[in-house]
Each structure stands twice: as C-alpha cells, then as structure tokens.
C-alpha cells in the first residue's frame, strides 16, 4: 500500500475482504470439478441489485455458472474496481477523469437504464406537470407554494392548494441523486451555480430520506410533498408521478419506453468503450418522446484481464466475457421485470464492439 492508493483503498478494504470471503465461500460450494474461482464476483450500485440478482439466477439456469454480486454502492464498486478486487463493478455514475486515470485500461459498458421519477402527495391532485426550470426552482427553495403562478400555468386543470411544498430528497449518497442533480444542472443555471451535481449535494431545502424507500415513506407521510424516486420503486410505493416537459416541449410520463428512447437519442455521441465516459449523460435529450431524467448504469471491467495475476485464467476470462455479453444481449429482456428500461439496439452493438477489446495476456478473449 503506497501513497494515495493506500489512503483511498482503506475504506474499500472491509468491503474487499467481504467480497473475497464471499468469493471463496462460493468456490467451495461450486463442486463440479471446476477450478478455483469459478464463481464470478461483482460489486457496486445498489440500484442494479434487483436486475443483476435476477440475471444471475437466469444465467445460472442457462449456463450453469454463478455470479455473485455485492451491492455495496457505486462508490464502493468503483473503489473495488480500482483496487482490482472484483471481476466486474457496476456503477450509476461513469468514472470521473481522475478515477479513469487511476484505473487505466478500464472499459465502460452500459448495461441498463434507470429512470428517475418525481413522486408527489397532494390530496385531490392526481395529475401534475413540471418543467425543468420550475423543478429546479422548487428544489432551490425559490418556489415554495403549490399555488405558485408558474405551477398553475403548467397545470391549468389541477386544483393546486395554497400549501407549502414539502421537498424530499435522498439523505444517503446515491446514483439516483446523481442523475436528478445532473438533470437540474443542465436545465437551470442557478442550480448549476449554487448546487451542481454529484452523488450527494448540499441541498438548499427539504428533508432527507434514506434510500428510495425512505424518500417514498416521507412523501407518503407528508401531505403536499414532492420528491424524486427511482422508477422501479415508485409503483410498489403507490405514489403518483409527474410528467416532465422535455426539450421538444412535450410532457412525458416516466415509462420504460420513454427511457429507452432517451438513450437511443444519445447513441451518436457515445464514446467507444475504452474511452472516458465522464461526459456521458442523456438527461434532457432532444428526442420528442424521450423522458428527460434517466441514465445508464455501467459495468466497469479491465481491457486486459491478465492484470489480475494468478486469480485470472483464460477460462475465467472467457467466463467473465460470456457473462457480460449475455447480460447486455439476452439478459436485456429481463429489464422490464424490475422496471428498468432495456438498452436500445445500437447500444448493444456498441457493447459487443467493446467486449471484443477484452484481452487475456494480450490475446483476444471473445473469439466466438
């Protein structure tokens, strides 16, 4: 452990130990004459857990190989990737420039699309529409009442009460916050100046709830509240969602199709898998039918798998690539089961090109 790496890695160490132990335990249970480390291990975003768990059980049924995923958060996943302790990491935010430099040779592979909804609780109101600017002003604390003229203008048919808006946001650092604040940063200069975007930000107003469930609970408990919740949670929470005006001027409800449409609109601007993805974001896209607040989640994997040393074999490298390939192609059909949007066809193609780059000791792994 030297210098900056040592300091940075320290936090990840607990998680790393847990992952290694889990991996070892997995090997023990994997009887069928397999060599050590036959089970693949991944770590990262909590948001991706339902999908990857579903994938791994489907994948095991088809291919007979298990994948063990630890949902320790995107930040933890990125650290585990940089430390090289996992076969793949999953994150909601792409690597920053600094992180990308430290994890040289990283490939970025989008594998699903998450959508952030605006959920609300106003007795007597079951249809609500926002524009990005108005949302930013509400979350900045400048629009404080539901019957504000700007809100009434957007919702001429709704009976908006003369009540304070109870703003609810995530209290824990999260990719959901990253996507939502990324959107607000794009649509509002005031937001960009005063707050900015990250997995946790200094919220000017509002109460914090822990996790999607925490935010959902706070919205349900507080009349006249408004908060942002991942689409996959909002239905089970039983909260109505608002339509958001996209760049084309259409009010769009958060749906899986509208999320995929937003991603498809961004394909031309996507970098190649081995380049830095730090600028990738398709919030506030141009497309007419696109919902404006959604984003990719990404796998992180190294281009040269041989760098993992003894842990890696040709066989294992092939297993990793097969798993990644399966999940970004066949696996996409399971997205709807967990209310994530599927990748558009063009992104799947891009991913296959990226997977072709993966090497084991200099030789291409995906030769099939």
């Amino acid at each position, binding site marked *: 452990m030297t210098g900056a790496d040592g300091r940075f890695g320290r936090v990840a160490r607990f998680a790393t130990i847990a992952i290694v132990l889990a991996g070892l335990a997995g090997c023990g249970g994997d009887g069928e004459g397999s060599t050590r480390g036959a089970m693949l291990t991944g770590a990262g975003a909590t948001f991706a857990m339902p999908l990857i768990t579903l994938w791994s059980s489907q994948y095991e049924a088809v291919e007979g190989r298990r994948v063990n995923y630890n949902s320790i958060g995107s*930040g933890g996943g990125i650290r585990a990737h940089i430390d090289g302790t996992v076969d793949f990491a999953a994150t909601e935010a792409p690597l920053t420039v600094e992180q990308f430099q430290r994890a040289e040779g990283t490939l970025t592979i989008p594998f699903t699309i998450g959508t952030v909804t605006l959920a609300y609780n106003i007795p007597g109101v079951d249809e609500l529409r926002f524009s990005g600017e108005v949302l930013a002003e509400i979350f900045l604390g400048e629009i404080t009442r539901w019957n504000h003229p700007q809100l009434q203008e957007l919702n001429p048919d709704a009976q908006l009460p003369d009540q304070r808006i109870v703003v609810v946001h995530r209290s824990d650092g999260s990719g959901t916050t990253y996507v939502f604040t990324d959107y607000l940063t794009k649509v509002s200069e005031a937001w960009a100046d005063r707050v900015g975007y990250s997995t946790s930000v200094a919220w000017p107003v509002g109460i914090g709830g822990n996790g999607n469930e925490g935010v959902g609970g706070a919205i349900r408990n507080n009349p006249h509240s408004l908060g942002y919740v991942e689409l996959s949670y909002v239905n089970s929470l039983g909260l109505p969602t608002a339509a958001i005006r996209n760049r084309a001027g259409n009010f769009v409800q958060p749906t899986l199709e509208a999320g995929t449409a937003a991603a498809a609109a961004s394909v031309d601007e996507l970098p190649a898998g081995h380049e830095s993805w730090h600028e990738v974001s398709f919030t506030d896209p141009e497309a007419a039918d696109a919902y404006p607040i959604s984003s990719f989640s990404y796998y992180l994997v190294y281009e040269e798998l041989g760098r993992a040393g003894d842990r890696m074999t040709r066989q294992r490298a092939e297993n990793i690539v097969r798993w990644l390939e399966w999940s970004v192609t066949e696996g996409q059909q399971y997205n709807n089961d967990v209310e994530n949007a599927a990748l558009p066809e063009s992104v799947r193609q891009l991913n296959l090109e990226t997977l072709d780059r993966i090497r084991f000791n200099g030789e291409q792994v995906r030769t099939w």
Partner: protein
Amino acid sequence: MDGIRRRWFRYLTGTMAVVVLAAAALILYELWAGSLPTWREWGLSFIWRTEWDPVRGEFGALPFIVGTMLTSGMALLIALPVSLGIAILLTEYAPRVLRDPLIFIVELLAAVPSVVFGLWGIFVLAPVVQQHVMPFVAGSPLGLLPIFGEPGPGYTLFTASLILAIMIIPIIASLSREVLMTVPREQKEGALALGATRWEAMRHVVLSYAKPGLFSAAVLGLGRALGETMATTMTIGNRLGLTFDYFESGNSMTAIIANELREAASEIHVSSLMAIGLVLFLLSFVLNTLGRLIVMRVHTGAA
C-alpha cells in the same frame, strides 16, 4: 504438566486482551491516517467550518458536532429524571414481587435493536411529534426559548432526541440502580432513626452518597446517545447546514457518515467523513473514560 497448561492459558487470555487493545489502537490509527488529507487541507479549522458541499469539495464538521451535542444533550435531559425515578422505585419502593419483573422489562428495552426504534420513530413518533408535541411546546412558555423555532416536519432534532432518550433510559436506569444499591444500609437506617422522613433520607443521604455514581451513569448514557447511528439517521431529517433549532431537521456525526460514506467518490470526501469519525471516536473515548474513572472512585471509596 499442570503448570504448563496454566501458563499457556495465561498467555492465551493475555493475547486476547492485547488483541482488543490492538484493535482499538488500529481503528484510531486508520481513522487518523484515512483523514489526513482533510487535516492537511484545513487543519483544526475543519472542526469549526460549517460548509459541507461534496460537489465543490468544501467540508466542515461543525453542523454535525452541534447536531450530535444538541440531540444527545436533550436526550440526557429527558432521560435522566425518568431513569432516576425508575432506579429509586426499584431500589426503595417497589415490593419484591414487582421488582424483578420491572427490572426485566427495563433491561429488555435495552435489547431492542436500534433499527426497530428508528422504524417506530418514523411511523409513530414523527407524526405525533409533528402534529401534537411540537405545536404544544411552541405554544407553551418553553416556545419562547430560541432553541424552539417554528415547528417543521416530523423529522427533527427534537424527534431524534426523544428516540435517543428512550434508548438510553434502560442504561442509565440499570446503572443508577446498581449505584443506589451500593449505598450502605446503615447510612439510610441511621437517617431514618434520627427522625428523617423517607423522602429526606432519600434526598440527603442516599442521593448525595450516590451522586458521583449517578453522574457517571449519566455520562455512560450520554456516550451511548453520541454513538447511536441507525435510529438517529432515520429520524433526524438529515439536513445539511448549521442549526440550533430543535424543531428543524438536522444532522449528526453518525448520520452523515452512515449516509454518505458508501457513495463518496472523491478522496477528500471520504477523508472528511473519516475525520468526523475520528472526532466522534475521541469524544466518546473521553466521555467514557471520564464515566469509568468516576465509577472506579465510587467503588474504591465504598470498599
């Protein structure tokens, strides 16, 4: 043979004791080493800086230290009289038939997982506090105090304080009971024989004899409140920014670490959370040492 075994056993137990010490020392070292970038950047001023903005990389610990102090302090203020009452009831007034079940119930309260307290706080206490308790306090003369502002949402420093109070009552009550039991019977009987009423004997003899012990029971309860994470995080509101208003959402040292460590991406963010951990560690360490020292003095004094 026996001698070897005995020596071996002594080494074994000795090693285990050292392991515990080493673990504590290692934790301290890791917190220090992990938080170095923060101390390098801002030095001690990190402790009284008030910004916390992960986007711009500005970090300061004061709002969290204040939040922890306010909630723990209020919790102690509420818990102390209640616990003392329980302890006195159990040692002096409760008939034998009632005493053991009561002790059992109080100690059972200490075994409830803090996440359960947190859930109860969210679903039961927070709405009650929002709709009834805060408006009532705000309307009473207490509401004139600057620490009680306009009642906000249900998740406030006040709600967290109430939860913490309930959580530390069993600790303070059972420690106080033990302290009260060390008061020599002769002292109390002497006072009663001199014509003191039961109340006077209680107040002037028993309580004054037990005062240092009761003080340390309070300190240990406070230590528990300082470190409580789950229930606090779930009820405090997790708002960034300095506030001294109990009716406002706030934050604590434990809550900010629990909330942000997992997804903290930049090095300085992680290191600032570690720095808060270090401050909390030292604070609890000092308080607990203080408490134990006083308990030790009481015990040697009583012997």
